[in-house]
């Protein structure tokens, strides 16, 4: 700073520019504003001269424009195109100011002068002319529009339209059914039939036997077979058509057993450990009279399928984990604290409030329980059955977490997507009910998938090089739940999906035999939502870099299965102690107590330690192989709030030019450089060494570069770009009806007084 060079005037100031004239007389200019519509999208209602509130202190920066309600989204079209924000994730189907109707959590209208407000539902009346519209979104955004210059009647109509269209009466009314039909016919010419199966998508969908076969082979589950008794959903509507079962069970037996299970859900194979132990999930047995018998047969069959004929252990998830209502209420609370409560007030005793929401406690419970299952599969080499009343909620979370911990394949992008497909979509998680897309039954709503993503984030946070994808990917995936254009999150069971898609194909004149994945794609077809360049934000440089290191050594390393480890004889010897999963002498943790009692407990030579504790201690005492078994720490000190997800829209919580993204930026540049160098090396070595082409200094073509942030050239200053914030690739500007981006702590101190909008206080007594 004091170097001899002339000082550049680059000191940055986060304060709002000096406001010369406090309130300019703003005349809404008249300009024709056309909405950007998707095929099949129609405008339902619109109102002009609307102000979108992006700041609280002054409204002169607020954009003016037209508010539109279509059959897909709420759209705001500003009069003046805002200056293009550099390098943000831009959605191909949604503009910066667009909110899909499915993403709306609550539609609130306010009349400031009359001091009235109303939460709008479907087909409701509104007795006052709204001056404000506040949209609470499921992706945690809060967006506010003001109608001070708008026609009162059209404002009212738009509000009612938004409320109405965000409460669709029927699943078929979701816009995806309109859009994908149009898209299919419009794009048909572009597709060459058969050359790229499933449009080149690599994620297995698990709707055909071959996907399961491949998974059986990959995990060497030779004692398991694909069974097709549920073809055409003959047995159970919530099971996939093809399932994997023990070789020793005949179709006939399975059909018979199915009668005894909830929703006729016979046990489903999930995964096999290289040592032979299997992870199985199943619903409860309805008839207590037959429970023993069925249990025994199932257990015997699973034991037979174990290469070492090891015993089977069952974990009843309903008994040891929070239920879906607990999870929902924890999520509501943590959301309240993060985005709804006035910022300053929630600052006080922040950690206690987070504790009180119990969200992190539940995250820990799921991680901890999944780790215990890992111990049985890996450490004790026994098969595990996850049991839950319906086998469609908690089992999804635990089975997928267990597999993420044990199998590095699922930590690749494709692997992760196949895991979601296998353990959630095909296993019959009730996405439609849990997401409450139709806003009908609030009791069924529960953010289980969100909980799972948060658990994945916790693992990612603890083992940053272990996952191929980034937290931005997880966040984008969670947002995609609220975009009704993809088949992944729209249905509650495989049968429901099949029926709706069949009807859809019929209605839209899609030829019979056409692949569902082609005419109604899953969310995994990311190119529908994001450009190739933006998709590189999903790539974790640390993971890619590690891969580079392997290739560099001359061998292309693929994901290897965790090697079977030999465990000390002591551990095997204790197996009897664990029979039936009942432990003795649990909980040896010393609690804080009087000095004497504490000393006494310390005076036992070595404390009693359960085999699982020893297993974990042993594992944690070794350096973690990020491509091997991965056990997350579930202590409160190591389970953190997922800031990008929960705080990305809160301007006050946004750190300009800071946050983990600055480290990501640097790592990405380095990996890009490494990839350029590697490509140069390859070019030198070339297939025929005789005629070496001179390498292009630019390295691989830009569309093949996997890093979002490209290597900078030596002359470039190595500074952190201005647009990086702790919210990146999202931007809190204008997404909350609160302060502007200028609402940094500094200006808050200077301004002294808190300026809170009426909406915050309103937010508390909505519902």
């Amino acid at each position, binding site marked *: *700073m004091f170097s001899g060079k002339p000082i550049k005037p680059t000191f940055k100031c986060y304060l709002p520019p000096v406001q010369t004239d406090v309130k300019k007389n703003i005349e809404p200019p008249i300009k024709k504003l056309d909405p950007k519509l998707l095929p099949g999208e129609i405008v339902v209602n619109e109102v002009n001269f609307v102000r979108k509130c992006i700041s609280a202190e002054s409204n002169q920066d607020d954009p003016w424009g037209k508010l539109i309600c279509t059959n897909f989204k709420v759209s705001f079209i500003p009069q003046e195109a805002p200056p293009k924000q550099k390098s943000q994730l831009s959605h191909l189907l949604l503009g910066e100011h667009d909110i899909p109707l499915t993403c709306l959590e609550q539609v609130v209208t306010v009349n400031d002068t009359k001091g009235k407000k109303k939460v709008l539902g479907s087909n409701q009346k509104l007795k006052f002319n709204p001056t404000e519209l506040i949209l609470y979104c499921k992706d945690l955004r809060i967006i506010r529009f003001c109608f001070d210059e708008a026609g009162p009647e059209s404002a009212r109509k738009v509000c009612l339209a938004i409320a109405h269209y965000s409460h669709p009466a029927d699943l078929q009314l979701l816009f995806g059914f309109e859009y994908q039909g149009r898209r299919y016919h419009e794009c048909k010419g572009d597709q060459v039939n058969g050359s790229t199966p499933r449009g080149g998508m690599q994620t297995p969908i698990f709707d055909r036997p071959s996907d399961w076969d491949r998974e059986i082979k990959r995990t060497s589950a030779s004692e398991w077979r694909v069974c097709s008794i549920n073809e055409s959903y003959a047995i159970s509507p919530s099971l996939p058509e093809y399932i994997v079962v023990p070789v020793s069970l005949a179709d006939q037996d399975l059909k018979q057993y199915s009668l005894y299970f909830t929703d006729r859900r016979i046990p489903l194979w999930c995964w096999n450990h290289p040592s032979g132990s299997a992870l199985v999930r199943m619903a409860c047995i309805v008839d207590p009279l037959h429970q023993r018998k069925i249990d025994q047969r199932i257990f015997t069959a699973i034991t037979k399928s174990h290469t070492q004929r090891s015993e089977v252990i069952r974990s009843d998830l309903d*008994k040891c984990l929070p239920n879906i209502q607990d999870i929902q209420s924890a999520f509501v609370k943590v959301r309240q604290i993060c985005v709804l409560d006035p910022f300053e007030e929630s600052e006080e005793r922040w950690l206690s409030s987070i504790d009180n929401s119990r969200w992190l406690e539940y995250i820990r419970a799921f991680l901890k329980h999944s780790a215990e299952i890992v111990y049985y599969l890996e450490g004790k080499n026994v098969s595990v059955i996850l049991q839950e009343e319906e086998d469609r909620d908690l089992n999804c979370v635990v089975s997928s977490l267990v597999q993420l911990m044990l199998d590095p394949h699922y930590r690749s992008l494709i692997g992760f997507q196949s895991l979601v497909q296998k353990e959630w979509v095909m296993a019959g998680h009730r996405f439609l009910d849990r997401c409450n897309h139709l806003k009908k039954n609030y009791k069924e709503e529960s953010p289980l998938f969100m909980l799972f993503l948060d658990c994945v984030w916790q693992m990612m946070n603890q083992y940053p090089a272990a996952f191929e994808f980034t937290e931005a990917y997880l966040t984008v995936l969670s947002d995609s739940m609220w975009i009704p254009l993809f088949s992944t999150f729209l249905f509650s069971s495989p049968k429901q999906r099949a029926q709706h898609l069949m009807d859809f194909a019929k209605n839209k004149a899609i030829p019979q035999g056409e692949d569902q994945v082609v005419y109604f794609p899953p969310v995994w077809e990311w190119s529908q939502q994001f450009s190739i360049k933006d998709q590189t934000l999903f790539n974790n440089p640390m993971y890619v870099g590690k891969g580079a*290191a392997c290739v560099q050594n001359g061998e292309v390393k693929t994901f290897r299965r965790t090697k079977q480890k030999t465990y000390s004889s002591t551990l095997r010897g204790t197996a009897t102690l664990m029979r039936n999963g009942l432990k003795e002498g649990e*909980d040896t943790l010393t609690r804080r107590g009087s000095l004497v009692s504490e000393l006494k407990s310390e005076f036992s030579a070595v404390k009693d330690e359960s085999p699982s504790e020893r297993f974990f201690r042993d594992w944690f005492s*070794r350096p973690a192989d990020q491509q091997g078994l991965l056990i997350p720490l579930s202590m409160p000190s190591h389970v953190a709030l997922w800031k990008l997800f929960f705080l990305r829209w809160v301007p006050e919580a946004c750190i300009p030019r800071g946050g983990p993204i600055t480290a990501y930026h640097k790592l990405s540049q380095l990996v890009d450089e490494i990839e350029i*160098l590697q490509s140069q090396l390859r070019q030198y070595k070339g297939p025929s060494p005789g005629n070496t082409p001179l*390498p292009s200094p630019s390295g691989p073509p830009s569309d093949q570069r996997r890093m979002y942030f490209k290597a900078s050239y*030596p002359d470039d200053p190595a500074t*952190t770009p201005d647009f990086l914030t702790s919210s990146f690739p999202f931007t809190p500007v204008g997404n909350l009806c609160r302060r502007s981006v200028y609402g940094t702590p500094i200006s808050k101190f200077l301004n002294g007084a808190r300026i809170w909008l009426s909406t915050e206080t309103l937010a508390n007594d909505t519902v």
Partner: protein
Amino acid sequence: RQTFTFTPMDNLESPLNLSIPTGSHVEWCKQLIAATISSQISGSCEWCRSSCMLMVIKVPLTGLCSVQNLSALRYGAQAKMFQNQVPLLPGETINTTVKDVMYICPFSGLVNGTLTITDYKLYFTSVEKESHFVLDVNLGVISRLETISVPNQGENTKGLELVCKDMRSPRFAYKTEESQPDIVEVLTKHAFPLSHSLPLFAFLYKEQFPVDGWKVYDAAAEYRRQGLPNESWTISKINSTYELCDTYPSILVIPTNITDDDIKRVALFRAKHRIPVLSWIHPESQATIVRCSQPLVGPSDRRCKEDERFLQIIMDANAQSHKLTIFDARQSSVAITNKAKDGGYESESFYSNVELNFLEIPNIHVMRESLRKMKDVVYPTIDEAHWHSAIDQTHWLEYIRLLLAGAAKIADKLESGKTSVVVHCSDGWDRTAQLTSLAMLMLDSYYRTLRGFQVLVEKEWISFGHKFSRVGHGDENHANSERSPLFIQFIDCVWQMSRQFPAAFEFNELFLITVLDHLYSCLFGTFLYNSEQERMAKEVQAKTVSLWSYINSQPEDFTNPFYVDYENHVLYPLVSSRHLELWTSYYARWNPRMRPQVPVHQTLKEMLILRAELQRRVEELQREASSHSLSSSSEHSSSPTHTTGTPLHTTV
């Protein structure tokens, strides 16, 4: 129906190897140490430090670990030497060795072994079940010794607890025998040498480092870097004999237009004669950070013309603003109470154009109490169910927030308001030092470098007379109410900033932990004594080694590989509870279950090595190719050798 419930997996105590029969962890640790020594990758060193905990390397002494590291050649392949011998520092002597001592590990029960007490450390070693166990506690870290009752171990058995300043309290049980010297007696003598007319170990330590850390800070050079002197500010020798103010440094920057007589009168009006002096000047606006102590206005609202004029001159030195802002760090109620004790604050009606702000930061006693509570939260066990609430109840993070908020206000006043500020508390050596140094860290990217940070600490803390007696070096009076963890609080704030801006600081977390460890250790002379005058009298620079000698002899260990110079960029941390975290890798590091997260920077370092290797190969091939093509055709000029290159501030 079979069901099973689970014990929380957190009950396990991971990295302690005591009962791992194979001792594989020990082997692994050794390898890690060897790797650390050879490659000096601080990533692995850091990993080892925190994960091995009480094992082969000793955490408190990251310093020692690396000292050995430096003198690795002398030790040679010394892994074996650890087994039976006590590694000694140059100048360190063994006082007593006691066998059959039991270490009462809060995590895994009793460990039987041998205890050695030197004049620098307590070294406990045990070889049980093939696994080697070492506990190394430097004596400087001990706050007090307490006898504890040991039930069921025979009459002659005594128990001893070492209550430490760094958040742990190891306990021992031992048999008293006539023939052996009493452990407590020996420990007391050497843990608190000053109370027993013995020298601090820093004066006995004889390590030679290739770099002389005492040369890091040169006040004149630092002021020159800031562009001083200039027409308004002069570098004054008025305190060269410490006559004006015995707790100030000899070199002071004061306004040009003021006479020595006036200064002396101002000194009489300021507590402990700590007159307003310049700490930092903004390179563009010339707005300054000025520090001092409270004015002695007393109950009768005394005035001092010279003092009023002094502040006026400070204001006038900055043409950009016609105001001066005084930040009084104290709670306003306390400042008012201080009037009764002959202290007080500047009245806005006597000082024209002055704006007075209270930052409402509680005093040293509150901070001490807060950290004491924190120790209960993190050691020896943690309350799983109420971890976050327990942290909230210590208020530690709340005070961190207050400090950072205060510093951000000061920085913003200079940067955006272009206004000079005066910062004081009561004596101007505690909260004042915290605030000025944090504000300077935000404003000036130089202080965010490894070297610059050392200058900042030397300047704002050491030379300006922060009472490092608050640490209680070598003093047995643990209940002294003067003790307070103010410097720790400052380092915690720096750590918080580095969490928010992972790429803005040249130094890493290991550096901050090392600084704190040696705040207590008494191995280096850096943090000894309360003022420059005292240090001159004790000949600290001649007789002790500087901490910076050690740090700067192996800077790569303490360097952050993510560092990108945020040059000219003011760094405002987000002062929000949402982004403040408990620094568990410092406060809770003694809990073996607190395994550190896999450090990202280690991956980065591996990639840096990979890149260097690839670059080398590409260049080789390019040379080959160009010589090849030269012989065949000359149409290709040599392609650029360095096609890319993100400047990286790391030595690979």
